[in-house]
């Protein structure tokens, strides 16, 4: 059963090699790989929900000497989201890239990115995590630069430099850990780590590097241009999954590995940065003229909510209340993943059909591209956090936690952010409902329109009405 952990990264990697060697069949191969990997992820989800955390010692070497893979509730849920989002985006991409040359360039990098994501989510070894981070960063940059325009290349270059800086900081922290504790295995470290300059510096360096990669305000400057100038399916995955991978690592380090030596003050710092991200990101999203930039800035804001959970989680004693809050954090992250991916895919369709993504010229989209507009509306509902989206449950937990721990101020930030989100989403929908129509083709390819609908639907209906298992899964091995 634990072989699934291997296949989760081995399948996409094999697919990458295959698509590279057989460019003619690349699209077919990639879609097959996507389906197979998703199936494996589903199997894993099932297994973990049945028998709790799974782990695998690569090469049969005991963790420490060798590298161990681990899949607990948290990583499994993220793996599942990754699989579904990448699968949908792959279907979309098969229709999105018209030229064979483009497809041949795209698929191997795409599957390498997936490999990196899965490897990162599974890895239980600090240095291995560094390698996965680099693989993730490089593949993401290569994909982001596929746009080929000046803006895209420039953004990709900045993205790369920032990413490298982040990984170097992370590596410095890792080196300190090995120097001090003689191990790289996360679970071993969790037991041996003790407060002191060593642990502090290591955690600080690793966290700083990861915050740079997950674009937490004020380290977000690189994100909007990079996410807004990439091809639609790439933007979808960058915004939905790649930044989340780095966030996932912060969560692991703070809540699992270094939990014992964390002070509320440190968590409050993260909270303040998160709050700033919410307000600033939402504000910029409201002011921007282009739909893709809007989506990118909203990512900056949404990540802020995730970090707002830290001061609340660390102020709570272990127990059902804390588990509920953690579940809220996870379901918020998942909802954003699905919603934002769907949103970017939908925007890609609008961009292709209308030839632009200027918000003030979208009038009549609701008539010309009803399905796509509906997808945007659904995604918007999730971003605002309105019921029945999973984000509603997440924000409920967030507000509840803030009240329970007496941190009222965060509530104001959450409400302000949500209202700003409503403002920028309905600014778009307002234009879409406008009846000043432009003479443009209304032909749409189902293969392009469905993925966006399915993803945003999952975010709103799926996670909103059937989200309870998330808590069970997290609880099963907490």
């Amino acid at each position, binding site marked *: 059963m634990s072989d699934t952990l291997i296949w989760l990264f081995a399948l996409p990697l094999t697919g990458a090699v295959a698509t590279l060697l057989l460019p003619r069949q690349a699209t077919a191969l990639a879609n097959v790989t996507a389906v197979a990997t998703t199936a494996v992820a589903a199997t894993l989800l099932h297994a973990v929900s049945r028998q709790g955390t799974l782990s695998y010692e690569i090469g049969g070497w005991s963790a420490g000497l060798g590298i161990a893979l681990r899949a607990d509730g948290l990583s499994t849920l993220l793996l599942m989201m990754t699989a579904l989002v990448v699968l949908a985006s792959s279907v979309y991409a098969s229709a999105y890239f018209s030229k064979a040359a483009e497809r041949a360039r795209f698929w*191997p990098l795409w599957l390498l990115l997936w490999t990196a994501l899965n490897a990162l989510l599974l890895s239980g070894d600090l240095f291995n995590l560094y*390698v996965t981070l680099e693989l993730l960063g490089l593949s993401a940059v290569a994909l982001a630069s596929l*746009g080929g325009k000046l803006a895209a290349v420039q953004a990709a270059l900045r993205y790369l430099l920032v990413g490298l800086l982040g990984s170097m900081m992370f590596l*410095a922290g890792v080196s300190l850990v090995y120097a001090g504790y003689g191990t790289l295995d996360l679970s071993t470290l969790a037991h041996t780590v003790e407060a002191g300059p060593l642990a502090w510096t290591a955690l600080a360096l690793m966290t700083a590097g990861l915050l740079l990669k997950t674009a937490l305000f004020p380290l977000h400057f690189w994100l909007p241009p990079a996410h807004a100038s990439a*091809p639609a399916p790439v933007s979808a995955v960058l915004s939905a999954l790649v930044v989340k991978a780095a966030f996932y690592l912060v969560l692991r380090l703070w809540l699992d590995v270094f939990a014992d030596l964390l002070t509320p003050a440190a968590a409050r710092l993260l909270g303040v940065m998160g709050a700033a991200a919410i307000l600033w990101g939402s504000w910029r999203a409201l002011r921007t003229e282009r739909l893709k930039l809007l989506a990118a800035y909203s990512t900056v804001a949404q990540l802020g909510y995730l970090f707002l959970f830290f001061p609340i989680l660390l102020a709570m004693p272990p127990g059902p209340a804390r588990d509920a809050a953690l579940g809220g954090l996870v379901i918020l992250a998942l909802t954003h993943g699905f919603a934002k991916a769907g949103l970017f895919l939908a925007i890609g369709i609008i961009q292709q059909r209308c030839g632009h993504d200027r918000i003030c010229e979208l009038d009549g989209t609701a008539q010309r591209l009803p399905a796509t507009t509906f997808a945007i509306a659904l995604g918007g509902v999730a971003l605002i956090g309105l019921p029945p989206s999973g984000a509603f449950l997440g924000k409920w937990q967030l507000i509840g936690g803030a009240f329970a721990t007496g941190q009222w101020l965060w509530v104001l930030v959450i409400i302000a952010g949500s209202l700003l989100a409503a403002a920028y989403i309905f600014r778009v929908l307002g234009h879409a409902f406008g009846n000043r129509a432009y003479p443009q083709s209304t032909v749409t390819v189902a293969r392009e329109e469905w993925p966006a609908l399915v993803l945003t639907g999952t975010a709103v209906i799926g996670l909103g009405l059937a989200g309870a298992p998330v808590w069970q899964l997290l609880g099963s091995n907490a």
Partner: protein
Amino acid sequence: MTTSAMLILDILMVLSLLSLAAAALATSDARRSVILFMAFGLVLALAWARLQAPDVALAEAAIGAGLSGALLLAAVGDQPRRALTGDTKPVHHHDHSNLKLMLEWTVTLLCIAVAGALAWALAQAFERAPQATLAQAVSENLATSGVSNPVTAVLLNFRAYDTLLELAVLLTAVLGIFALGPARPGYRTAGPVFGGLVRWLVPVLILAAAYLLWVGAHAPGGAFQAGATLAAAGVVLRLAGQRTVGLPQGPTLHLVIAAGVGTFLLVGLSLLVLGRPFLGYPPAWAGGLILLIETAAMLAIAATLVLAFLGGRPQPPRVNVTGGKPPAASISTLRPRSREGLSGADVPGAESHKHFSEENRQC
């Protein structure tokens, strides 16, 4: 050698390291700073040799200093300065200069703080001097690892998974480079003297690579050092004006650059299918499998590094223009690609839309 002499050596080494690093980062002239960086790398290699890390020293000399240097120099060669100014900065420095000064100071202080924290942490680490490091574990399991060089054992057996992903990183890099456009136009074909030099230098390098690969099992060396040496041969050929530097074209080229990852996966997964753990070599076969993987890895690494040096897929002869052309040449070759870019702005309908944009400027 006496400890005091050793100490003096150490101090000299450390000082030169610091001064070279500082100098490399201080000079504003690109070419100079690259050369200083390479020098820094070489001294670093010496320092590591002194710290009994010969494998790493070799790799640093060959890759860290050698090939990175070559890449950077090539970049300096075809980049007009302003390109390297390429706005990659979050903060805009020009005009208001006192803001710039403030920023510089804050960053400098931050870096000092980082250095301090690092040193402090490191000091504590050395005190704790973790006894239960993996060193013992490695030496205990070395016998069954299939090789006698502990570093190779860690790289290709105990932590083989890291190496697999690392090869994936190399693959990603070269694919990314391919996606960005064709290789630089070749250099002037070598004169008789250099030509003669090349004629015996290249075989030597290839032999050296083979030797490093073979010796890696029990002595310093291995796939990476070997791959780097092989790449060096490619670089030499390239400098001699050899356009394709003996690399295959088309599908075969893909086969080569994917060889490392492919072989690794093949071995790992077949073991899994045969009921062993992923990458869990049977002790009897370990040596052979590792050599197999290392050979494939070497080829892939060499190819990747050379392609990185070329700056892309080597062009079929007709495109190439002999004679070192100014960047304009490489740009002209890029033009068509930038047209078929993927960004939404050049999808059908973009033109037909243009005339609407005017009347809607309000809002």
